[in-house]
């Protein structure tokens, strides 16, 4: 084992391999930060370039791209409130407020550091615990996915402390939007009005750009008066990276918890960085001593989200390498690359091709460290982009949104949907509906529906349609977690009440 370790390191630090991996990380960051381009897309575009390479540099490059893109998404999330990839949705919650406070660099450095730590953690888990973790992936059947979706939806309760009814309505609307298109079980067209383009449903990224980006751009333009015309003032300060790192190192539990959540969610096939980040964020809120600060711009929020979405990378490769079942969409593309190199997922990868596989896994850890450095040094540069005056910035952002939404499926219909969602998003904001719950509903809708209907069919076969939901151990754990999570705002208020009984008035 130790010998494998050293052989792997030798491979990783070979100039050619190392260079390509670094190029991959950089490219990943750049693609990730453009809204509309996702990690999956970046990998798909660059896979052909890896054909002519040997397996090791090819996989190292792809691993670098995947990791880089997971961090890159946070850049646009922080600077312009638009997740560059879906995994950065949760990063906008505190990332953008930080930018508005003039602390964009703090947010970017937090993201780089957190992503780095999370990525290394995920890679190490992949390295050491794979056999153990692979079996976890298989334990998730339809009922477990259903309850996982329900748990995910209860996060809305934590996220929308200001007005839970509106948050829940947002979630319900998100669920409804996810039903547009062909039903996953049954194949009937729903809400498509005869447009074949809608049969595929509303693409998540299109909706993300619409809900997060356009309303922000419109809000920017709203504020143009005679003088003010920048989003926020960013003045470069000295020594920000070290300051931020010191702050974060004081919170090891936050980093550890986020990493664990990210890895674990990654292992569950189908659940990717977006869910990982959202769950991690909500847990950070739940266990924080000052939950009300989240959402106003605290680096803990950014750290929670970004640490877990990079940890997810390692997790998603667990079922991929052992069973050929991708833990998340980008992993599916890597599967394609693996197979094109002539390798087949399974035990062979760890024995016959062990050298390649272990090098790949270890390279993920190294890639994340490199990414951290690029992030630290790049943050000052990226943060400066905020200083572009709004009159240029707003149209530019729209311009990029159009490119982004078009490039998903080369379909103008997507661009149109993006704009329509943008307008709807603008009005929702005016009515105090936060886009987070809506998007969460859209993401979890398919999991909930598939899980529900498939389980009902399974239940019918075993005699009891509903029984199957309540008789399996993992399901029960998830149910308990969901109940606690849903009731949390009340539990938290009760605890606060008790703490206040000492003397001060409690809130009415």
């Amino acid at each position: 084992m130790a010998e494998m370790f050293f052989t792997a390191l030798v491979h990783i630090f070979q100039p050619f391999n190392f260079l390509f991996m670094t190029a991959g990380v950089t490219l990943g960051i750049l693609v990730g930060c453009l809204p509309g381009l996702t990690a999956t897309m970046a990998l798909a575009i660059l896979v052909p370039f890896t054909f002519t390479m040997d397996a090791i540099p090819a996989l190292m490059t792809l691993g670098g791209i995947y990791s880089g893109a997971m961090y890159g998404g946070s850049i646009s999330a922080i600077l312009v409130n638009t997740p560059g990839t879906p995994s950065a949705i949760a990063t906008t919650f505190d990332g953008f407020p930080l930018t508005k406070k003039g602390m964009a660099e703090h947010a970017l450095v937090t993201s780089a550091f957190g992503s780095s730590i999370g990525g290394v953690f995920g890679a190490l888990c992949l390295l050491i615990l794979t056999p153990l973790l692979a079996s976890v992936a298989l334990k998730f059947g339809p009922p477990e996915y259903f309850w996982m979706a329900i748990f995910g939806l209860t996060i809305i309760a934590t996220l929308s402390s200001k007005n839970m009814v509106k948050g829940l309505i947002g979630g319900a609307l998100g669920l409804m939007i996810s039903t547009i298109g062909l039903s996953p079980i049954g194949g009937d067209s729903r809400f498509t009005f005869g447009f074949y383009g809608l049969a595929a449903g509303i693409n998540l990224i299109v909706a993300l750009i619409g809900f997060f980006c356009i309303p922000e751009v419109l809000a920017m333009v709203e504020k143009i008066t005679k003088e003010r015309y920048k989003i926020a003032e960013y003045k470069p300060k000295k020594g920000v990276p070290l300051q931020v790192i010191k702050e974060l190192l004081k919170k090891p539990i936050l980093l550890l918890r986020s990493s664990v959540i990210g890895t674990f969610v990654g292992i569950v096939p189908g659940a990717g960085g977006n869910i990982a980040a959202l769950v991690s964020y909500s847990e950070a809120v739940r266990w924080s001593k000052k939950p009300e600060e989240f959402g106003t711009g605290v680096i803990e929020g950014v750290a929670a989200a970004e640490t877990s979405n990079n940890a997810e990378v390692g997790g998603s490769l667990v079922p991929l390498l052992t069973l050929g079942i991708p833990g998340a969409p980008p992993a599916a593309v890597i599967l394609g690359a693996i197979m094109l190199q002539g390798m087949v997922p399974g035990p062979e990868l760890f024995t016959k091709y062990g050298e390649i596989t272990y090098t790949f896994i270890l390279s993920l850890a190294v890639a994340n460290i490199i990414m951290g450095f690029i992030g630290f040094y790049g943050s000052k540069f990226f943060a400066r982009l905020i200083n572009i005056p709004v009159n240029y910035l707003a149209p530019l952002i729209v311009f990029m949104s159009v490119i982004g939404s078009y490039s998903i499926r080369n379909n103008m219909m997507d661009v149109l949907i993006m704009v329509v969602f943008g307008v709807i998003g603008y009005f929702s904001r005016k009515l105090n509906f936060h886009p987070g719950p809506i998007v969460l509903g859209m993401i979890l809708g398919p999991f909930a529906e598939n899980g529900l209907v498939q389980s009902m069919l399974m239940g019918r076969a075993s005699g009891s349609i509903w029984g199957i939901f309540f008789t399996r151990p993992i399901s029960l754990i998830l149910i308990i977690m969901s109940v606690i999570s849903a009731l949390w705002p009340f539990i938290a208020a009760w605890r606060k009440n008790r703490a206040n009984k000492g003397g001060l008035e409690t809130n009415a």
Partner: protein
Amino acid sequence: MRRNWSLILLVVLLSVTLIAGCGGAKQEEPKKEEPKVEAPKYPEKSITYVIPFDAGGQSDVEARRQQPHLEKSLGQKVLIEYKPGAGGAVGWTELTRAKPDGYYMTGMNIPHIILQPAQRSDAGYKTEDINPVAIFQATPIGLAVLNDSPFQTIDEFIAYAKENPGKITIAGSGTLSGHDIARLQLEKYAGIKTEYIPFTGAAPQLQAFLGKHTMAILANSNDLVQHKDKIRVLAFGSTERYEVFPDSPTFVEKGFDMLPSIDRGVAVPPGTPADVIKTLEAAFMQIANDPDIKKQMIEQGFVPKAMGQEESKAYIEKTKKQYLEILAEVKK
């Protein structure tokens, strides 16, 4: 009250854009152009090869395998594009509306292109409009259980199903898809009832099956080969026994008139000039007959095929008749 011109302009602009944007997506008759006499210099620029599924899937891997060879025989770059959605329907609809100039082709899957328009009036395309160039791969569908399953042979499976109708759960990919139809055929010929659990793709169905959430699976040959050490194939959908599973009978052997399979090929828009198709056909046939590629395919569990344009057309016609019959029976 002053007329709010900006608001009126906004509304007008909005409506026009919505109509224009939607107009591009509404149902239209695919244009049939006169086949021009092409200058013999085809291809002169890069060709787009569309995959109507997500990146990383089986069709993608196959296209990537072909890409370098295609580029060599055609002398131009081949650009792979993804247009996923509705199980391939979005990609095939776009195919039927694309310019038939020979620079646009899309991977095609049978029986998808037959079943989709047959079941949905809003699929966006018709089977006849898919203009096949070649079929290069088949993955017969097999029925399998895990090694520790109580069913040792298909006869035991059927016997159990007869005594416990609706109790056996079979994981499959899609509703009224190739897998589902295979299940319906099995039920019909064996006289049993099972519970079919549709999943959204190969990975989810395998995950559910390997995790013991369903008792059996109807899966493509390459997936079965990948996990051959964990499973027992009870029956297979080829004409003769498959080398990888020599102990597994074929459905045909058992007296069931079914050859369930998912076949992959490539197609061009209707109206593409005949000689352009011939050039493309030749390029794909060369790959299909390449012994190294064939070997790779077989190792991974695919059945290499080399059907040219005419053969593919005939095959699609034949398969269409069969499947339409089955669908008609199901509807009753």
